């Protein structure tokens, strides 16, 4: 089953005469219950693609979420099915960690309704999953960059959507917490969620099930992370200055001079 699909997707950034096309007709099918990494050189259009897939960017072509055209679905209905974690989500310094995670329940709650038992349970699950539960009464503004990132990830997890799109989720995380995030993404996919992550570091990206290699706004390759063709596509888009090798049963990317 296909969870998320793009057909002839085109998008541009900027305004007026400064408008610059970034995506040039992307066709993409992302299977449900799989974890897909989107990688590519700087300026390839990775974040733009993710925003377009999330319905957060005006675009030409179509995006289909669980078979239905995304543009036609209501905001809250879409938000319950698709959660998004952006790069450098900021502000909200005066909210407690718990309140920030509870924002993830907005699509599930009535206009003025207080959070219900299901909302509290979802927030607790999300904060425990990112090991942020112990700070739930602290203010977001009192946390370090890595701690904030874990809380913001919990906010996205608290939506409990079937599709989770994350843009650079590893930014600010130290190596142990990067490993925790990788394990979390794996467990989410194993539990049936569709996880799509944009990562600029290739080694973590290779832990996913599938990889979409993007360059200059076009898909160069889509395939399993362990396929030789995927590794060749990576070497190609990074000017042959990257090689993929197996180490202790995991694929790792090595940069070369």
């Amino acid at each position: 089953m296909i969870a998320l699909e793009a057909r002839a997707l085109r998008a541009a950034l900027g305004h007026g005469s400064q408008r610059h096309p970034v995506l040039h007709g992307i066709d993409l099918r992302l299977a449900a219950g799989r974890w897909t990494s989107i990688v590519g050189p700087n300026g390839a259009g990775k974040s733009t693609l993710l925003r377009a897939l999330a319905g957060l960017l005006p675009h030409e072509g179509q995006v289909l979420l669980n078979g239905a055209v995304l543009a036609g679905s209501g905001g809250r209905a879409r938000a319950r099915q698709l959660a998004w974690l952006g790069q450098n989500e900021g502000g909200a310094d005066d909210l407690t960690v718990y309140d920030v995670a509870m924002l993830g329940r907005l699509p599930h709650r009535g206009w003025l309704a207080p959070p219900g038992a299901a909302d509290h349970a979802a927030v607790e699950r999300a904060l425990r999953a990112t090991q942020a539960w112990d700070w739930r009464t602290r203010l977001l503004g009192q946390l370090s960059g890595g701690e904030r990132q874990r809380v913001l990830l919990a906010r996205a997890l608290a939506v409990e959507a079937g599709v989770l799109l994350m843009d650079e989720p590893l930014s600010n995380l130290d190596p142990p917490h990067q490993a925790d995030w990788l394990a979390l993404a794996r467990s989410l996919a194993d539990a049936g969620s569709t996880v799509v992550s944009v990562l600029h570091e290739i080694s973590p990206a290779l832990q996913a099930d599938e990889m979409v290699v993007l360059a200059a706004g076009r898909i160069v390759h889509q395939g399993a992370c362990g396929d030789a063709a995927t590794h060749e596509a990576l070497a190609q888009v990074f000017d042959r200055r990257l090689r993929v090798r197996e180490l202790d049963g995991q694929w790792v990317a090595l940069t070369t001079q």
Partner: protein
Amino acid sequence: MSGDRRGLVLALALLVSAAVLLLLGASVGSTGVESVFTAHRDAAAWQIVWDIRLPRTLGAWAAGALLGLAGAVAQGLFRNPLADPYLLGSASGAALAVSIALALFGASPYATQWLVRLGLTGAAFGGAVAGVLLTLVLANGVLHTLRLLLAGVIVGVVLGAARDLVTLAVPDILQAMQGFILGSTGFIGWSACGVMLGLLLPLLAVAWALGRMLDGLALGEATAASLGLPLGVMRAALIAVLGLSTGAAVAQTGLIAFVGLASPHLVRSIAPVPHGRLVVLAALMGGLLLMGADVMARWVVAPQELPVGVLTAVLGGTYLLWLMHRRSRRGGFA
């Protein structure tokens, strides 16, 4: 103490302090506290306390509360700690309208008579709302925050220049305009109190109801949109709250400086709370600040009186400097 409890304690403290200041405000003036003690047997003293001091003090609270509410909404909506209620052209619109009205009515001594004041009040409110609407037209709606801010700056500059032109053409209005720009609580009567309090409650209710959405917006516009928040409707409602609350306050008191900017910051520094509670607490804080400034303005050089806007500017400016110093030590103001 938890954030919820601290917020509740702050709300109670602000309400009790306001009640104390209301009593103080009824006692301070050119005839001193004697008027309060003789009011029950002296008609003139009764008039001073009931018709002048009390509505003025309560009106200062209401105007401050409207500005505090507008400041909290502006800072949440534009995700900018330096946003203030006058950001979207309301101040320049009100000032231009008042300058035109003064030029048409003629300057003092008639400018201070209550009939003319009522005319100026209407002009100031209309001008403030027109300034905000002009900003919205220039920004092509409410969808783009940056475009809104830029349009607000442009409207401020252009309408400010137009006001200067009117002042230049009719120099007699200079003194009255100065009074409007410095701000004054001296002309507030019971009817003005009624108008401001009548507007404050529904505007506060709307802002409180949208507080959860302002919290979502604090994470960024894209994240707020991904959570299914109706950003267009929400912005339009919040800008209506901002424009109406600022317009109502400016119409009765002129351009009171810094109350709208400082109130939300003061609340955050004492009790960081989500936006739903912040808008209520910022209103209570704004009310207390302007009421305190009003009492001080009458008391410091009694029986003379300082323009209340000068006091709020001095106190607010000092606070802003301290805030900038504190933020820069913590690594940036943004």
